């Protein structure tokens, strides 16, 4: 389905996650962040870039990975993306959220 983000039509799935990463840019990112009540700071960008890098290497995202990332510790991760840090940060990063098999 389509959703207008940053005045552009973007392809998203039922939960609002981007389907095509090529449509992601900083403007789209800031708009989605705004919808999640997150104001992007330098630290947020660093985390987003780390997650995108992991995703593009086909490496699974996990809280444990964050702990070992050297970018941020887990308490900070929760502070930057309150509520559900992995699901919110991946939404903002334009990549799929971590899933189980069902």
């Amino acid at each position: 389905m389509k959703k207008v983000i940053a005045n552009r039509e973007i392809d998203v799935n039922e939960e609002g996650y981007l389907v095509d990463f090529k449509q992601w840019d900083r403007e789209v990112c800031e708009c989605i962040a705004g919808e999640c009540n997150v104001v992007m700071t330098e630290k947020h960008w660093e985390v987003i870039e780390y997650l995108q890098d992991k995703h593009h290497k086909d490496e699974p995202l996990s809280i444990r990975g964050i702990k070992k990332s050297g970018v941020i510790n887990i308490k900070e991760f929760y502070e930057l993306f309150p509520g559900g840090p992995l699901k919110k940060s991946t939404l903002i990063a334009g990549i799929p959220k971590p899933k189980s098999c069902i």
Partner: protein
Amino acid sequence: MKNLVILGAGTSGTMMANHLVSKLPKKDWKITIVDQYKTHYYQPGFLFLPFDTYTEDQVKKEGKKFIPKGVYYIQKKIDKILPEENKVALEDETLSYDILIVATGSKIAPDETDGLLGPLWKKDIFDFYTYEGALALRNKLREWEGGKLVVHITEMPIKCPVAPLEFAFLADSYFKNKGMRDKVDITYVTPLDGAFTKPTCTKALNYLLKEKQIKIETDFAIMEVDNDKKAIVDYVDREIPFDLLVTVPTNMGDEVIERSGLGDDLNFIPTHKHTLQSKAHENIFVIGDATNLPASKAGSVAHFQAETLTDNIILYTKGFKLKQEFDGHANCFIETGNNKALLIDFNYDQEPVHGTFPFAKIGPLKLLKESVFNHWGKLAFRWIYWNMLLKGIPIPFVGRNMSFKGKKFDIKADN
């Protein structure tokens, strides 16, 4: 004479030995399989042990029985893989290989969580991902008088990602049958954003939690187990109290992978997702739980992988290009309690859908819907595992790649 060495005689390794023994020319290839343990466990059965549905004898057999004639079986500990020398060091000898298949699986690492192995471990805290853990939990459940049961996943990825949810469903039935469901409060705790994480499944299956009165806590990343308070605590100081904690600890690849410098930070080996060749070494192939693939860590996945990997090993020995074939196909029964089960069929890209399996319109199994027939399927699978799957005998009408015949794409978004 060339050497093909398989490390691990679990589900994947045993299947590969059985596939390859008839496909690789005997005059050119010697096949060796190494595993330190004598016993082969039917791991899906660990889900049923705690509820007294299966007995010990039904889930274990001697591993050697399933290794075909013509394959050399070595029961020894693996010390280290030396990929630059094409050698594997065992406890007291060294094997050379031309092709190596790593099938060393994954296992729980409870020491990765602070406080998990504290005073309450095996008293009020149990796992069911090991034979010993499942039996200890069975003994506990037999005499437990009720209270707060917390079923918990530490972090992903885990072997059989749906097993903890099945555990919660079966626990509901178990306590109902014992006439004590009113004395038990069941909470399911997950690091993900729901018990069901794929939109099709959320829509089709969310009713199950309500129907079974299972409470859910999502986005819970455990920091520690507080043994004094009897609670699990996350990084934002959320506390979930328990009387009985059934946890799935962190799952990791074998230590031999770490010792050999071949894994990621969970000791899983970076692997090409469609060919099953390791990313670092072209003569090392990886199968089953040992890979880092974004597929489920499950026997059915290993079964489909084994068919592709067999073809790719043969292609590799002849110097041909490998097939980009494996699609992440998984096909799993999910117990929902009351002698019913679901069946799901999916791959890397396609979420589980409605429909029939394996025959379009006929079934007899129904996808993503509860049925008694699916439950029988799950129980029958134990026989299939010992008698067909391990031996590499094809399961009729079930293809290695996901088929779209008989599938209904009728689960739509609400908006």
